[in-house]
């Protein structure tokens, strides 16, 4: 019995460690309970075989049997994990490689220590513990990436696995093999470790590069939005300039009128003066079209409605946008500008047999519901996320800023293309 104890201890440690490694590296599909139960049954089966072999005293048979048995058991429980077959196989090979490394290292190490039978178990436990700790704390996220790209690293894992198993399967007495082939085995372990470390290091670098690239892209997009905002701003300034020019024209006209009136009165022509005043009164005051209560949005709508009129696109605009909004009015006016600009551009691209129009409706029911409708040319498509595809270089920034607006206010943005009619709907 006292001979059996160290052996049993060793078997228990390595089998438990193998099962734990499997659980760390793979992604369970079901609850923890089910996974644990299955793993316990693997443990029991593996331990049973080990005890049988120890009782018969055949360590060589155990080492060979163990490879086959663990493979069969692992294959059996594969449906319990989310990983695909090749991902699972890669993890299985990795577990086997780690376990082989630990077994060989602990065996060789224990020969130089007192009580080698117990020292072997202790070393095994320490080494397995170290591997498990490193894997679960530091390497797991990187490892998951390596698994995603298993094809690139599969040969490395397989090569190491074959090398180890060549030694185990070709040996007549495992203890002799381990003692005599210590140096080549240590070298294989070194190569194996080096290979895995380089895999993880390269992945880490790739990850960093990818992050930098993504950040660059984000910055680029932000710059585009800023440019767009600046463009819109300057357009607004132009509009304001136009308004002030109009105002000064009106002031000039009024001064002119006053001067005429003054002259008539000075000349004592009261009758003419009265007639002039009357004629001025009769001229109905010209009211600029107002589309909605909100001044910022109204300015944008006026500008684009004017553009549409100039290009001969009939526009039907019915807006119910309150003066005060729970979104930024300027941002909303940019969105409205973009939607109207896109609609006008789409109308301009229409083939001649299609009648252009744009219909812009907005209702306020706690939220703002906007709809822009215009006919679109055949072949206008939405991408896989449901957003319109820009057909020319430089276009599509407007749509992007609408998307950004919807995202910012947790709104909903829907694009619909139906029977040659394009509809953009925005709920914020």
């Amino acid at each position: 019995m006292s001979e059996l104890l160290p052996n049993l201890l060793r078997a228990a440690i390595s089998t438990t460690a193998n099962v734990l490694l499997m659980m760390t590296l793979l992604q369970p599909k079901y609850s923890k309970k089910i996974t644990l139960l299955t793993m316990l049954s693997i443990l029991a089966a593996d331990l049973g075989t080990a005890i049988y072999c120890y009782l018969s005293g055949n360590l060589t048979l155990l080492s060979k049997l163990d490879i086959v048995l663990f493979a069969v058991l692992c294959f059996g429980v594969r449906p319990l994990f989310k990983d695909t077959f090749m991902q699972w196989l890669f993890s299985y090979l990795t577990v086997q490689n780690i376990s082989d490394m630990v077994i060989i290292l602990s065996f060789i190490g224990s020969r130089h220590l007192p009580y080698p039978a117990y020292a072997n178990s202790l070393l095994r436990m320490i080494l397995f513990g170290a591997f498990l700790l490193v894997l679960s704390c530091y390497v797991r996220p990187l490892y998951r990436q390596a698994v995603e790209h298993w094809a690139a690293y599969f040969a490395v894992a397989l090569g190491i696995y074959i090398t180890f198993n060549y030694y185990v399967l070709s040996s007549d007495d495992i203890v002799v093999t381990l003692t005599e082939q210590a140096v080549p085995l240590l070298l294989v372990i070194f190569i194996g470790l080096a290979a895995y470390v380089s895999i993880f290091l390269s992945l880490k670098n790739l990850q960093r590069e990818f992050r930098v690239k993504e950040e660059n892209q984000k910055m680029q997009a932000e710059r585009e939005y800023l440019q767009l905002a600046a463009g819109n701003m300057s357009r607004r300034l132009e509009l304001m300039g136009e308004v002030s020019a109009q105002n000064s024209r009106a002031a000039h006209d009024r001064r002119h009128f006053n001067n005429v009136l003054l002259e008539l009165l000075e000349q004592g022509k009261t009758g003419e003066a009265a007639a002039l005043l009357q004629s001025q009164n009769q001229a109905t005051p010209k009211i600029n079209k107002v589309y909605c209560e909100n001044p910022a949005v109204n300015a944008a709508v006026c500008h684009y409605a004017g553009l549409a009129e100039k290009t001969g696109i009939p526009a039907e605009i019915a807006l119910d946008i309150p003066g005060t909004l729970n979104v930024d009015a300027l941002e909303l006016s940019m969105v409205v500008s973009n939607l109207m600009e896109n609609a006008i551009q789409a109308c301009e691209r229409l083939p001649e047999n299609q009648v252009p129009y744009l219909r812009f409706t907005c209702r306020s029911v706690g939220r703002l519901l906007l709809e822009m409708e215009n006919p679109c040319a055949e072949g206008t498509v939405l991408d896989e996320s449901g957003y319109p595809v820009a057909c020319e270089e430089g276009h599509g920034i407007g749509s992007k800023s609408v998307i950004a607006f919807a995202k910012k206010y947790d709104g909903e943005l829907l694009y619909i293309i139906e029977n040659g009619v394009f509809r953009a709907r925005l709920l914020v």
Partner: protein
Amino acid sequence: MLQIAICDDQPQELEIIYAHLNAYLTAHTLEAETRKFTHPDELLSAIENENFHIYLLDIVMPMVNGLELGCEIRRHDREAQIIYATTEPQFALQAYAASPINYLIKPIEKQQLFDTLTLAISKADLTEEQTFTVKTTDSLRVIKLSDIACCEYHSHTVIFSLKNGEEVVSRTIRKNFSEYCAPILKDRHFLQCHTSFMVNMRGVERFAKDSFTLCSGKIVPIAAKQYPAVRDTYMDYLMAKGRQR
């Protein structure tokens, strides 16, 4: 039948518009019920219980001005046709919240009013008023669909909440709620937004991701799974109305 409301605090102005309106109705052989209001409050209390197809409103009135009145009417009935008639052209700038169909300057030109009325009538929903018969525990009750604000299925009965605040409870029903409501749902104003709720979209004041709030303040929940379909139907309803107008 066409229902028209006129509201003007100046009795003589009111009579002028009324006379023009009658002339129009006679000329076009139209049957209509016209109600005259000299104070906006009277009109406000009237719309609590009934709907008009067309509203002719003055703007400068005591207490509640015509613009506020228009917004209040819109709140109760998104489909009403509002025509403003006023001496003050500058108010036209602010009148858009009530989305009036036209803005007439007094003294009213007969032809302009006639044209506007023709447009309003063409847009008004004059389809024969639909009704639904509810078997209550003690009687049969015929309800106008336009009077229903929402319906709720509750322990095998259906509770009809009416616009005037009344609740009518049906007898225990054997069919499921959707089957029971199918005839009502054929009307384009109605929408089932939850396994046990149906709403009249005409009376919706607020639309959130999880509920409709009616103008009575009642909240009708929207089932999360049905939200995309509810949103699309509601948008279609709102936008189609915009197109009509």
